[in-house]
């Protein structure tokens, strides 16, 4: 029995997201609502998405602003409650772990790194308090000496000095602050880190330092990452699996090499073509048509059809579902029918 259980844990993914949805109600002034007599507008920020992340692997979610990728991150760490669907972490439902007022053992296994290291650290707290907070808050470590030792250990792990514990956030550069964020996230020895654009606010040389650090930590500690980013080059550097999001849905999900060498969905192709070429190999950026539509009035059928060069009548009416096409998952009628060049 126990052997059977152990075997199933070995093979099952660490994180499994099932039909996750989040709908936000858009506030409309009371008077306007009374006059127009219309129901409150809803935004489907995350619309029925499913994915799984294997232990020690990195899944990246990529997409333009407003596609719902940050909402997914917030749903996974319990900062938002899903409207429908759920998250299984190591075979158990995460929503109960995040119920308020309970220090569940699951909770310390999931942590988050935020985008802006200037906003995610309390400017009036010393580094020792910031990094030590998760430990104190959940009562996992007590005693000042033990705490100080643990903080020094964590700071060393991210390449900061033990003396930095007494400093305030403003005494650090952006890259060093993001290291403090990472140290705080690692305080409880988590297995799964949700990283919401962790390098977007950083300069490219500092971004390289943080990406290298994250990869080293993943290797040495067997961490599992969900990595949210809008930058495809960063995603290529860090991910094993990539999900491309558009208007709250995953439109393509593939293994990294497959996605970058043989993208299936026209939106993925468009994103890849839109990246400026740093090496100056002579490849020109393809001009991209249009912009992301207003999520309050998403187009009928496939959400991408107004910008898609391959859209036909079916795309305008019927919404495509994720289907396996040559080993990758893509939600596109044209790809499925073999209409794509």
């Amino acid at each position, binding site marked *: 029995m126990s052997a059977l259980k152990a075997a199933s844990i070995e093979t099952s993914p660490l994180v499994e997201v099932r039909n996750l949805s989040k709908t936000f109600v858009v506030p409309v002034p009371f008077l306007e609502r009374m006059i127009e007599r219309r129901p409150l507008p809803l935004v489907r920020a995350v619309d029925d998405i499913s994915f799984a992340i294997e232990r020690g692997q990195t899944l990246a979610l990529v997409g*333009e*602003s407003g596609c719902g990728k940050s909402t997914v991150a917030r749903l996974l760490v319990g900062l938002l409650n899903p409207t429908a669907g759920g998250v299984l972490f190591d075979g158990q439902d995460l929503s109960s772990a995040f119920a308020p007022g309970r220090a569940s053992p699951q909770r310390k296994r999931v942590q988050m790194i935020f985008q802006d290291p200037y906003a995610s650290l309390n400017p009036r707290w010393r580094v020792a308090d910031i990094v030590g907070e998760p430990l104190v808050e959940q009562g996992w470590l007590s005693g000042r000496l033990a705490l100080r030792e643990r903080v020094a250990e964590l700071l060393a792990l991210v390449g900061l000095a033990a003396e930095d514990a007494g400093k305030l956030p403003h005494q650090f*550069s*952006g*890259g*060093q602050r993001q290291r403090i964020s990472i140290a705080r996230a690692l305080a409880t020895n988590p297995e799964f880190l949700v990283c919401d654009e962790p390098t977007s606010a950083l*300069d*490219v*040389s*500092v*971004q*390289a*330092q943080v*990406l*290298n650090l994250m*990869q080293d930590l993943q290797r040495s500690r067997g961490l599992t990452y969900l990595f949210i980013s*809008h930058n*495809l*080059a*960063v995603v*290529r*550097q860090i991910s094993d699996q990539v999900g491309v999001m558009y208007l709250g849905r995953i439109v393509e999900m593939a293994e990294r090499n497959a996605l*970058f060498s043989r993208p299936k969905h026209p939106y993925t192709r*468009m*994103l890849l073509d*839109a*990246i*400026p*070429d*740093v*090496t*100056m190999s002579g490849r*020109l*950026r*393809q*001009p*991209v048509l249009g*912009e*992301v539509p207003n999520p309050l009035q998403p187009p009928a059928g496939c959400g991408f059809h107004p910008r898609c060069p391959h859209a036909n009548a079916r795309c305008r009416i019927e919404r495509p579902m994720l289907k396996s096409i040559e080993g990758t998952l893509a939600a596109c009628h044209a790809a499925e029918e073999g209409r794509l060049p």
Partner: protein
Amino acid sequence: MSPLLEVDRLCVDLGSRHGSLRLLDDVSFAIAPGEMLGFVGESGAGKSLTGSAVIGLLEPHCHMTGGRIVYDGRRIDDLPDDEVRRLRGRQIGAIFQDPLTSLNPLYTIGHQLVETMRTHLALTEAEAISRAVDLLEETGIQGAAQRLRQYPHQLSGGMRQRVVIALALAAEPRLVIADEPTTALDVSVQAQVMALLRRLCRDRGMAVMLVTHDMGVIAESCDRVAVMYAGRIVEIGPVRDVIQAPAHPYTAGLMGSIPPMTGERGRLVQIDGSMPRPGLIPSGCAFHPRCSQGWDRCRIERPDLMAVGASRSACWLHDPRRTG
């Protein structure tokens, strides 16, 4: 062709109660008509400040303490305020990073365009409106006549940035300072905006000073690039030379730290440490504490720009008198 803008040994200091800090040190460059010169570097390197100094919009406590700025053969850094104001907008346009803060939320797009044009050009209201429609169409906005009646909040980010570009171009300036014009935009819209700027630069013979932290944007748009570090230009030259064969170790590090889109995935090159803050700039070459190729001389003596092929680089590695 003689340069349209010439900046010669520009120095900018920040004055405070505790003395003054040097923010820009000995910055020299020139831009010819129809040329796009990129400025790249990490935050705090002084790229935006250089742009602000050129259009005479330095923050209250910053002062030019040395050097000259010459526009079209005429020195402009010592002009009285009202003359600088006339130059700005009419001759020199500016595009800033955040399109929402550069537009007035209380006025329609049309009002703002017409006001700008009539301030600088002798046009009637009707002429200005028809020119505004032409301008918006030129920047790729469809249904321009209807857009004129809209307010900034009714437009998307990409649309707003097009309006900001139209505003900057309204008085047909010969020089445009574009400070991170695409940083707030998504990559698909970014490509559209850069294509627009390139086209205007080519068609109108406009000179552009493009400030950005994105080497990719520089690579696809600029003719030449200046790499800044701690308030100085450390390398300047044709884009292809600087990108494919960087002469300064800092530029090489910067290029290596960009995750590649093709080929094998390896560990990224990382430059350890961070850029020094003003006031704490090391002696000698400011980059020496982070440089893997430095030696004694770099700690003591500050290198000036030296010719390396078609570029110039401020690094002792390229000293022609160097032996061994």
